[in-house]
């Protein structure tokens, strides 16, 4: 068994901004033997020190779990935080044993009892990336569209170091500029957190929510809730790769807890909710592949899938893309096997089908999806001789045509 990783918390002020660090020692793997995870909060010279370290530990814990190292924390952790983080590791290891070889142990120096003020209302610090999900969540709660389920938003935080890497300041600035209309509409304070806590992205996307909560937790003195948008809808509860709500909630502690929003909505429903706010819809940024960091390229898988969500909501010409959806874009989608297109099927096709959408794009998508081979057939295909492959292809085409 490997030696444990030791983690210390440090807090300083550099260039007029708060800088917080987790110093990790005895690390095995990239960056060994010492790693510094830092968070910088531009424009904020001082912040109250968090009473417990729960929220900062989710990311490093997953990362230590990849090398099978236990974690010793030289600082306080809440009882609820310790339980949740330990469960997080247990569940992740069960779901992805190839990635996390064993259930590692988290050993804090001390367990501290923390409680919020009895009169503090349940407000939230919301994460904003500018994508469809986070914009929906911010608008839904910021404008009280969720009725009795609304959580008032105390502040919005955008994180530099996740979607936009730290060296792409231009990309992050473009992302922030695009989100400005939303932030103005909501009229809440806006903060930026810069962080290297994603490291080399080895634990992404498993660590996406724990790391987001870590960034939001610097404002935990303002509100007890970290409001984050959902990854996987409840209607398509995938557990393998993504970050379902049940696991995301394990990034909670007794001081600062996670509320995941929007899991009961499909992406087309989110577009429909935002439809009355045309200026907001135009700001949505889903693309991370195009050359221009300020725009959606409109052609990558994520862009085309989002265009299909807009189409399901009745918008062929979505305001956040420069051109309307066309069949050529559907033809360009990669569909090698069922597991590769499952997201496309569940988040796009289901919604198009449920709304009886029609048109050349929908027809083409139907034709292409109906022929996607199962994973097992992809494996067999490698061993089949070319004539056999051609025969199967023709037979399927013939059967399909004769049915029509």
């Amino acid at each position: 068994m490997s030696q444990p990783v030791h983690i210390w918390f440090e807090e300083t002020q550099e260039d007029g901004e708060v800088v917080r660090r987790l110093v990790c020692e005895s690390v095995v793997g990239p960056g060994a033997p010492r790693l510094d995870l830092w968070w910088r909060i531009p424009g904020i010279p001082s912040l109250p020190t968090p009473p417990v370290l729960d929220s900062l530990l989710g990311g490093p814990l997953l990362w230590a779990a990849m090398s099978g190292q236990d974690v010793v924390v030289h600082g306080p952790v809440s009882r609820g935080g310790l339980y949740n983080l330990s469960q997080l590791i247990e569940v992740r290891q069960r779901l992805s044993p190839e990635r996390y070889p064993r259930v590692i142990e988290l050993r804090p120096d001390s367990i501290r009892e923390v409680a919020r003020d009895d009169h503090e209302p349940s407000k939230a610090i919301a994460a904003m990336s500018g994508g469809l999900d986070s914009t929906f969540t911010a608008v839904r709660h910021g404008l009280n569209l969720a009725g009795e389920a609304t959580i008032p938003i105390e502040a919005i935080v955008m994180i530099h170091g996740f979607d936009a890497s730290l060296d792409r300041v231009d990309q992050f600035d473009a992302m922030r500029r695009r989100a400005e209309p939303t932030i103005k509409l909501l009229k809440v304070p806006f903060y930026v957190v810069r962080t290297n806590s994603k490291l080399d992205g080895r634990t992404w996307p498993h660590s996406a929510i724990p790391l987001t909560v870590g960034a939001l937790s610097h404002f935990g003195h303002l509100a007890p809730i970290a409001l984050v948008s959902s990854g996987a809808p409840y209607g398509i509860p995938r557990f393998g790769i993504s970050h379902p709500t049940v696991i995301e909630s394990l990034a909670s502690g007794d001081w600062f807890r996670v509320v995941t929003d929007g899991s009961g909505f499909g992406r087309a429903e989110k577009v429909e909710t935002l439809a009355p706010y045309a200026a907001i819809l135009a700001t949505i940024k889903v693309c991370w592949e195009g050359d221009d960091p300020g725009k959606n390229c409109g052609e990558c898988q994520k862009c085309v899938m989002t265009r299909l969500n807009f189409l399901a909501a009745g918008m062929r010409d979505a305001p956040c893309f420069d051109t309307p959806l066309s069949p050529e874009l559907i033809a360009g989608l990669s569909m090698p096997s069922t597991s590769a297109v499952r997201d496309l099927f569940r988040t796009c096709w289901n919604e198009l089908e449920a709304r009886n959408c029609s048109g050349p794009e929908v027809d083409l998508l139907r034709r292409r999806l109906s022929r996607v081979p199962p994973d097992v057939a992809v494996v067999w295909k490698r061993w089949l001789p070319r004539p056999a492959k051609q025969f199967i292809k023709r037979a399927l085409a013939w059967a399909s045509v004769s049915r029509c």
Partner: protein
Amino acid sequence: MPSTSYSATPPPWKLALEPQSDARLEAVLTRPGSQPVHTWFECLGRRLLPPEELDPFIAAVLPMPLRAEGAVHVAGTLTREVVRNLIDASEGWEDWNVDRYTALRISADRIIDPPVPTFSRRAAFAWSGSLRSTHTLVRHYARSVPGGVQVGRIVHVIGLQGYARTISADAIAAEVNKHAERLGATVACVVTNAREIGLVEAEIGVLPVVAAALHLTATDLKLAFHARRWPFSAQLRYPRPEPAFPDVFCGSRMLIRADGGATTPTQMVREVYEHAPFLLAAISGCSERPRFTAPCGDCSGCIITLLAFAAAGTAHPALPLPTVIDVERLQWSDPIVAAEATEIASDWSTAGSRVHQALRRRVERDRANAGSVEVRRWLASATGLGPIWPR
């Protein structure tokens, strides 16, 4: 599609507490044009105090308005947390099956918003007698889970499993008490009519009722645990919305937390054997007879329990050893049975026995079958004879 406006046409449901008797807490759910639904809870040997907030009752009746569309108004007080959580859950159920469930709008005469409780040192534990709930209880009792808490109370809801009506509730309560004494915990055995009036349905399960019982019997502890019904391995094979929910029965006065779900049945038996062997005899997965009575030994729940014990290298004190025929009788169409049997086959202490070999063959057959089903569906989809696949 989850509703965000308040323009629904059906009249709202109304939930109100009924005048209380000494023994029972009762609430009634009414709607113009529908029969009133009376639901009650009773704790054997102990008087339940009327709750200040109606969180337990809104949790218990959740399945009814969820299936019947509309809004619910509570004549009384709710906590903000339970309102948010149950609205979220209802949106999830609707997203899962829009033809069967409807997102709810929940309101109340008064909604209070105190801070959510933090983890206390002691907690209540729902104990159905299943291997999963016994394991949850034991791993906290033995403090083998980091951040684990002391077992302060054991809560058993009588009559949620099994169909035999000849056994008295008092006899079951005596049996629960006998085991709980050794854990040093107090017991609350709860009787309810929830199952008789249709509040327990197959897909949603018993959790709303169990959560209500925990709310009613453990307010002083502010923290309660229940075992996850749906193991994560089953979720990988057959996704369902409920296992993806966070702890949606938490209120602002009380946390109701799901525990476990990541341990194989074999490992669960090993841990119970190590830390609390006196509980082994109480374990039952029987779906035919009430828990804490003799299991039937024939149903898939019993066979899975037998196999888990055999895989851990021990025998269930009240059941015979499993046979190859038992393996063949497993209801593989039940996702939990299939997932747990697969886990047991891969975690067998002394591999190579006839039963183990039979179980492994059954698992292999299941895998091959899954592959051929996938190919058949693809062929049907590609030729236009069936719906589009992948699903």
